C-alpha cells in the first residue's frame, strides 16, 4: 500500500470518528437546550392563568429562536425530515398562546417534549437503531 493511501486511510478513519463525535455533541446540546426551554415554558404556563402573558411569550420566542439555531446546525448532520416536526409544533405553540387555548398549548408543548426525548434515543447508536 502506498504511503499516500495509508495516510488517506487514517485521515478518513479520523474523519469518521470526528463526525460521530460532532454529531453526538451537537445533537446532545441541541436536544438538551430544547428540553430546558420546554421546561421553562411549561413552568411559566403552569404559573399563569392566562397564557397570553409577556413573560411566557418571551419564553416561547426563546424556545423558537434556540431551536431554529440548533435545527440549522443539526441539518448538517441529521435528516431534516426527522426533526422538522419540532419546528411545526413550536409554531403551533405560538398560535395557541395568542388564542389563549391552554389545552392545545399544553398538548403542543408535550409533543415538543416528546420529540426531544424520543430523538435522544433515535439519534444514538443503540441496538434498536442498528438493527
Amino acid at each position, binding site marked *: 500500500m502506498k504511503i499516500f*493511501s495509508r495516510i*488517506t*486511510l487514517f485521515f*478518513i*478513519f479520523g474523519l*469518521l470518528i470526528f463526525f460521530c463525535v460532532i454529531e453526538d455533541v451537537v445533537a446532545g446540546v441541541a436536544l438538551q437546550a430544547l428540553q430546558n426551554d420546554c421546561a421553562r415554558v411549561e413552568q411559566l404556563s403552569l404559573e399563569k392563568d392566562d397564557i397570553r402573558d409577556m413573560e411566557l411569550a418571551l419564553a416561547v420566542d426563546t424556545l423558537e429562536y434556540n431551536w431554529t439555531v440548533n435545527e440549522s446546525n443539526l*441539518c448538517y448532520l441529521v*435528516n*431534516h425530515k426527522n426533526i422538522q416536526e419540532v419546528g411545526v409544533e413550536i409554531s403551533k405553540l405560538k398560535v395557541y398562546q395568542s388564542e389563549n387555548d391552554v389545552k392545545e398549548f399544553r398538548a403542543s408543548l408535550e409533543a415538543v417534549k416528546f420529540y426531544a426525548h424520543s430523538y435522544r434515543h433515535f439519534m444514538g447508536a443503540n441496538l434498536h437503531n442498528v438493527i
Partner: protein
Amino acid sequence: MAHTSDMLTIIIRSIIIYIVVLFLFRIMGKRQLGQMQPFELVLTLIIADLATIPMAEIGVPVLHGIIPLFTLVVLHFVLTFLCRVSTKFSMLVSGKPVIVINPKGIDYKALKKLNISIEDVFEAMRGLGYFSLDQVEYAIMETNGKLSILAKSNVSPVTNENLKIDVAPAVIPISIVSEGKVMKANLQEAQVSEDFILDFLHKKIGVKTKIKDVLVMTIDKNGLVYLQMMKGESQTFENVREVA
C-alpha cells in the same frame, strides 16, 4: 425561486458527491475498474447506490452520503489487508481459482459448484481465441470471474524461444507529442527535449512546422520515431537520435 434554489442545491450536491466518489475510487486503486473480486463488486454496487441518495434527497445531509462511503472504503482497505496477510481469509472472501477443464476433459462437478454452464465456458473460451475443447489443456475460472486457458502444446503459439531466434529486447514507444501538446512528463523517460522535437520536425517535415501541427509522435529507446501530423499519413523514422 424555490425550485431554482433546489436545482442549484442538487447541482452542487452532485458535484460534491462526484468528487468524493472519484477520490474514493482513486485511492482504492485501479484494480477496481478491471479485475473485481466479489467483495469489490459488492462495494462498487453499494457505492453507486449510496451516492445517489443525498444527490436527489435535499432533506438528507450530504454527510449521510459521504459517511457510509468513507466507512466502506475503510472496510475495503481492511478486507484487502486481511486478504493479503491471510490466504485462508482471502479464499473465504474471494473464493479460489477452480479448474474447469483438465486433460481428462470438462469437470462438470466444478461447473455445477460455480453455477455456470458449459455454454458459458465455451463463450469465455471463444473470447480468448479458442474455439474447440480439443485445443485446451487446462481452463481455470479465476476468482474475478475470468477464464484463464493453458492451450495444448500442439496449438500454442510459436515463440522465438521455440524457434531459437535471437531477437533484440522489446522496447516501449513513449508518447512525446499528443494532439499538438508536448507530453512534458514523458520527455525525461524518452531522453529527449522540446528543442529536439522542434529540431526534428524542422528537419523532417518543414521549417515552418510547429508542435501544434503534430497529432501524435512517439519515440522508443532505439530511436524509432512514429509521427503523424494533424493532416497527412503516419511516417516512421529510424535512428533519429543520430540524425538529430
